[in-house]
């Protein structure tokens, strides 16, 4: 029984490398060359996806967020986004809110870390003060939407453990389905299932399971475009909450890579200067 199971995983893992010729070549881990466990395969995919995203330096973009409820109401938020890659640590990112008007100029700065808890500060222009957000999790609703901060950000590989499940068709492509379990036991999710195409390792869908392991939310990605001949970015991210029937759509525009940004643009003092 156990034997057959192992073999089937092996077969799948082997199949993965048939479909991932690039992966097999690029990841020079001896553990992966022949027979690897689903955990190792999952981790390898996550590392590879992360690696393909490495080295972009920094980028800026605009984001529109549209919230919908069961009653059919809609509400819109607008913000600008900047992110800076940090060697050896998590990215630093900055959201500057433009809409609604009352939060215009409010800015959220996040220093994410590989395993330690992230740091977050919010600049309140009406108070002209920077406030530190010391919540122990970042899984609460982001601006009343169905996204949490955690759901929107590019996760660090170290924040999850992985298990490769299977390959299956996703639209025109073939996707690997990977299960990831948050390392942080305080996370609001018990696990996530991630669909990534085997060709470019773009994420197309994520299923979020809440702490009682029921399927709470589904995130789908659309409108991928490639920048600098390398980096893929989705134009639209749609999160549906299956429990409440609410949904949120994020639309990303004006992606710009390689702007003149440095660590000083992502400091607490810089927060006061954003407009």
């Amino acid at each position: 029984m156990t034997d057959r199971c192992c073999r089937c995983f092996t077969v799948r893992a082997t199949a993965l490398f048939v479909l991932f010729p690039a992966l097999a070549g690029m990841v020079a881990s001896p553990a992966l060359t022949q027979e690897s466990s689903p955990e190792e395969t999952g981790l390898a995919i996550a590392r590879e996806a992360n690696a393909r995203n490495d080295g972009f330096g920094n980028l800026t973009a605009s984001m529109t967020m549209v919230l919908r409820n069961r009653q059919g109401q809609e509400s819109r938020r607008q913000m600008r986004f900047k992110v800076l890659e940090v060697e050896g640590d998590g990215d630093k990112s900055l959201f500057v809110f433009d809409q609604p008007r009352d939060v215009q100029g409010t800015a959220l700065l996040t220093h994410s870390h590989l395993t330690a808890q992230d740091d977050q500060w919010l600049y309140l222009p009406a108070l002209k003060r920077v406030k530190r957000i010391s919540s122990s999790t970042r899984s609460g609703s982001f601006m009343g939407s169905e996204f949490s901060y955690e759901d929107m950000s590019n996760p660090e590989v170290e924040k999850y453990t992985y298990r490769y499940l299977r390959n299956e068709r996703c639209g025109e492509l073939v996707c690997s389905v990977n299960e990831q379990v948050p390392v942080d036991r305080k996370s609001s999710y018990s696990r996530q299932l991630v669909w990534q195409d085997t060709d470019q390792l773009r994420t197309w869908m994520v299923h979020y399971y809440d702490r009682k392991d029921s399927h709470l939310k589904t995130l789908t990605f659309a409108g991928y475009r490639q920048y600098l001949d390398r980096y893929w970015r989705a134009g639209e991210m749609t999160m549906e909450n299956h429990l409440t029937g609410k949904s949120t759509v994020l639309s990303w525009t004006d992606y710009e890579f390689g702007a003149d940004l440095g660590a000083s643009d992502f400091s607490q003092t810089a927060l006061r200067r954003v407009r």
Partner: protein
Amino acid sequence: MNPALLDRYIAGLLRYRWLVVAGATLVMLVMAAGGQFITVSNDHRILFGEDNPELAAYDALENTYTASNTALIAVAPKQGTVFTRETLGAIEELTEQAWQAPYSSRVDSLTNYTHSEALGDDLIVGPLVENTASLSDSDLRRVEEIAGNAIELVGRMLADDGRVAGLAINFIPPKETHDAAVVELNEYLDGMLTEARAGHPEIDFYMTGDIVMQRAFAQATQDDLEKLTPIVFFLIVAVAFLILRSITGALSMVVMILFSVGTAMGLAGWNHTVFSPVNAGVPIIVMAITVAQSVHISTMTLTAMRRGLDKMEAIAESLRVNAFPVFLASLTTVIGFLSLNASDSPPFHTLGNYVAFGVACTFVYSMSLLPSLLAILPLRVKLAAPDEVTFFNRFGEFVVARRKPLLWLTVIPAVFLLLGISRIELNDNLPNYFGERYEFRRHSDYIIENLTGLESQEYSLNSGSEGGITDPRYLQQIDAFAEWFRSQPEVTYVRVFSDTMKRLNRNMHEDDPAYYRLPEDQALATQYLLLYELSLPFGVDLNDRIDIGKSSTRMSVVMRNITSNEQQQLARRAREWLQDNASALSTEATGLSVIVSHITERNIKSMLRGTLIAMTLISLVLVVVFKSLRFGILSLIPNFIPAGMSFGLWGYLFGRVGIAASVVTVVAFGIIVDDTIHFLTKYLKSRREGGSAADAVRYAFSTVGKALWTTTAVLSAGFLVFAASGFEVSWALGILVAMTIMFAFLADFLLLPPLLMAFDRRKL
């Protein structure tokens, strides 16, 4: 029916009696096989019609914020306050487990209450209590102080005296599998509490909430279907045996009951009908009516045999005489029950339709199966003495002799009883629908007594513009509105958004109590809110209190022990307050309690039409039958007044009545009108043959007196059994209908004859 045709039918029926029994058995078995598909619902929402405007308003509110069902758990240490490591630990454990409950969407408790405080330029947001075991005594005192001063907690999550704490779990069960989901999560909650009780013997745990009520709802349905039905069955059979004094007669009643109920409930099953406590009485009502109808045929067969007729002749005569009156009685009963379709509350449609179908089955079976059975089974009677004077002969004489005093003796008490109607107060309260035999009711009572109210009014307060909820004017208005509610005696707790803003403003000013007030600048308030929202952990966000456009907030007002009337008055006063002080916010109260507080009125209104249609139809039937407009109308008196007298008596005895009241009149009308039909048919027969009014009364008493007494006894016994139901709607319906049947009997025997003798002086 053409008499010759009827005779041919009877002759054929008796000849092929075995075939008839076999055929009927086959039909019944095929129908009854459907019974396995009957299901019991636990969703109290089925009480409300789809186009119920109060329900629509509540749905809109839930769609704007978050739809949910709730379970409320009270944690009550046997001694002292809840601020001990043991009790807080128990609450923390329960909170954690509640998150694991299936379909749970949110958990609010004393321990996970989001406490916010300032620490320099940091805003610290987190659960009030964490890792209880490690708390020091001074930590406990700090928690007690914070909780005792938190307006968001006291009166809901914490009793005023600190001795009971609450834990509210919101659930969003999937619509498609609602019933199964409710069962599943109730089992989970039970297991959770069993474990908590075992682990903390020093603490009592209580549980209520609509999700728990739904189980009680299903339980009550099951109890009525499974426990009351056999009681009624044996009672009715016993009564039938006593009256008929014939084992075969009683046995044939049993068979009739099995066939009629089996066929009616079988059809319900084939149609995949879902039963609820409101209509769990279908088999009981069908049983009572079955016996009441078929007893006429059996009685008359036995009477004819006592007179010396041979069995087959006796059966034939009984059918000849009874075919038309039994048909009419069935017709009027069917009309009465079908008119329940006018009700705003769908379970009453099911009740009406299946009882009507059952009555139609009874008619068919009593015209085929019953005579065949009587013909097959051995039937022996003692011959009667030819000059025997029955009780009802003497009674007829008495009524004729004392007609004047009787008129007064009946009219005066009737008027007195009718006056009692003014004492009736319409009141519906979902928890109180359940008798104290249900744990749900006992726990609800404890929680109402010791922690918080269970009735609530929900308001969606719209600022009129996107992002407008942080407008200082809006905040002041909702704050004043909440303060107004807090000053109302009925109100125990108000949850309002302005409290959160006050708390945040204080946090932003180094927790200086002087800043516990509303921020004066909109942009500042919005930014505070943004900061707070970004700090809130998963599962305790504000999305169930604030709409996505930040244009409206939801305010919840909790009341304790409030009647429908008080509930409506409070809503009216609130509306007036809004008009006078914040006209831009004007809105209506909504919520489950509000819908329920209107349900009886709404049903009475919808049933008024149904009642009118039924009465018109039945009166038309009577006019046609009696071939007289005058008698048709006169016959309405003994049928209208009894329902009024029952309500009056109810007014004196109990006062409050709920949704059952809306259907009593029409249910009773279809049944009691049968007595009048039987009585007046005989009366008119005598009159048309030349007798005086007094002669006709004597004749009517001697021919149908006993049969009417029998049906009244059977029917009122059947309906009275509902008094043993633990569900108020069934209980009230049963008692009211039973009273009406008995009053109708009295009216037909004591009021109608004197009236006839007083007004019917013309020659026919």
